[in-house]
């Protein structure tokens, strides 16, 4: 269980998070959504320790900030938004950097980077230079590295966590679905996933739990149907949105065509 309570963040002179909180369970996918500037990424970065914040973050009851970097790295991996690589590493070499901690001691460790690349649809890309890949391919190569770091969703009975900051923002629809399925499989296998997303439809499709943010506060959190409502979404996004559902499976979707700009 991951629990962030009363998280406040001040960047420069401006306070950007006001006591935001989040609960996420292993075995489930928790998605943070909200309009631009609502504090989604800031909340994620406060939880992962990238940003200094007030409040508490606990992982299975342990203070996450008190864990040493190497033991924290054994329990969770973080996918950042696009990053710049300093030297001409090959894709294989970038992915291999995720081979840390006990995973590196497995007898098949040398084969794992290429298997991680297969999972993100980049089989055979190991020999290319990372800097020569397209933005979407770079994002997936980074995802392969992050996956490798927490290769087993549950290690010695302890669930491991994936924190994903806009994992599908740079991807085409086919790869968006591929990555979302990958994240869901990780959660179904017992790991925990916390993702920041822009796409409400992918969120509705894949999230087990949604955290909706507005102006540095959590507006609502809970199951998809409880959070993604006409009222909540219209208030958060500043335009009248209507939530629909497919008659057959009851899946939730939001069409921009059905929105009215206030």
């Amino acid at each position, binding site marked *: 269980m991951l629990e962030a309570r009363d998280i406040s963040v001040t960047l420069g002179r401006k306070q950007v998070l006001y006591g935001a909180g989040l609960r996420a369970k292993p075995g489930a996918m928790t998605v943070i959504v909200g309009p631009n500037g609502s504090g989604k990424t800031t909340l994620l970065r406060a939880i992962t320790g990238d940003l200094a914040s007030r409040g508490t973050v606990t992982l299975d009851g342990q203070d996450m900030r008190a864990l*040493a970097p190497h033991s924290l790295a054994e329990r*969770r991996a973080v996918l950042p938004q696009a990053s710049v690589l*300093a030297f*001409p590493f*090959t*894709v294989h*070499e970038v992915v291999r*950097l995720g081979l840390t901690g006990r995973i590196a001691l497995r007898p098949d460790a040398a084969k794992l980077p290429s298997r991680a690349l297969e999972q993100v649809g980049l089989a055979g890309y*190991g*020999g290319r230079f990372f800097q020569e890949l397209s933005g979407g391919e770079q994002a997936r190569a980074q995802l392969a590295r992050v996956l490798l770091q927490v290769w087993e969703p549950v290690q010695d009975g302890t669930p491991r966590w994936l924190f994903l900051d806009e994992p599908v923002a740079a991807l085409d629809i086919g790869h968006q679905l591929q990555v979302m399925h990958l994240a869901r499989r990780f959660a179904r296998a017992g790991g925990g996933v916390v993702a920041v997303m822009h796409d409400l439809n992918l969120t509705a499709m894949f999230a087990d739990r949604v955290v909706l943010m507005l102006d540095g506060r959590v507006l609502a959190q809970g199951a998809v149907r409880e959070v993604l409502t006409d009222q909540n979404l219209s208030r958060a996004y500043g335009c009248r949105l209507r939530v629909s559902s497919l008659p057959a499976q009851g899946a939730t979707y939001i069409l921009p065509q059905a929105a009215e700009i206030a």
Partner: protein
Amino acid sequence: MVALPWGRSAGRDAPSDRVTGDRSGRARVTILALVVFVMLAAIASLGTGAAGVSLGDVLVKWISGEELTLRERVVLFDIRLPRLLTGMLVGASLAVSGAVMQGLFRNPLADPGIVGVGAGAGLGAVLAIVLGAFLPPAILAVAGMHLVPLAAFFGGWATTLILYRVSTRAGRTSVATMLLAGIALGALSGALTGILVYIADDQQLRDLTFWGLGSLAGAGWAKLAAAAPIMMLALLAAPMLARALNGLALGEGAAAHLGIAVQRMKNLAILTVAAATGAAVAVSGGIGFIGIVVPHLLRLVMGPDHRFLLPAAALLGAGLLLLADIISRLIIAPAELPIGIVTAVLGGPVFLWILLRRRGIVDM
């Protein structure tokens, strides 16, 4: 690049590293080749010099059990051997501190000589030479013969620290700021050094002049003993930084998420650069371009993985400096050219070539 059949990762049917992207096999072969290269350079260095003592004669005498003449013993063991060891340690230290600094600043153009760390270390060394006598006796007693290299280390350390603080914000280093701050710090160190030269007495001026030329000519056992422990410490610490520097290539945040204690590693990297540069500068003056050319050439051949780059840089740095030293002894024999001139003549054009290669590929 030459395709080496034995550079493939495993077995005859294994795909080449161009396909897999795993260059660790190629890196290992490169390191082995460099070990041979350093040994050959060392033998050549022992056999070269104005005294005309040839290794062949010495070897024949040694095999036949004949005694070496006093002259031969002095030339080999009191002149050429300390010079050889000093050259190897200085070359390795300069190349490794270049590679570490480039990893720390996440930029292949960072080099202790270019960004003023060498000048800062030089200021420390000159301070110790000129004003050392005024230090409290307790400090003098503790530092002993290590005073000049230690002072150079502190000068280099202070410069690196200031440089890092000035040019890095929120984990990102601005290359333009780094280079400009390096110029400013280098000029400042140069000016302060100049003031010290004014107040130096005649004997100190003599010391300063020989030292400042960038030369291994003054290398002897005493100088080597003073600086070697500091350089060895830095060279031993460097491999511990390899994983951290690889992680830092992804950015500080990503490195931390990989389980790297980023701040501690950055401090260790700065100390390593300062110790290696400081001690090398203290013993040999300003020898340029080794720190930037060596890591760059190696990255072209075997990639930027610091687990292999750091040991390979130590070897190639040691070997190249020995070669440069041999050239400096041969080119105007029996006189010799300061080695700093040789490395600048060879390294300057290579550095320009690196800049040209980067244009249009990576922005700086």
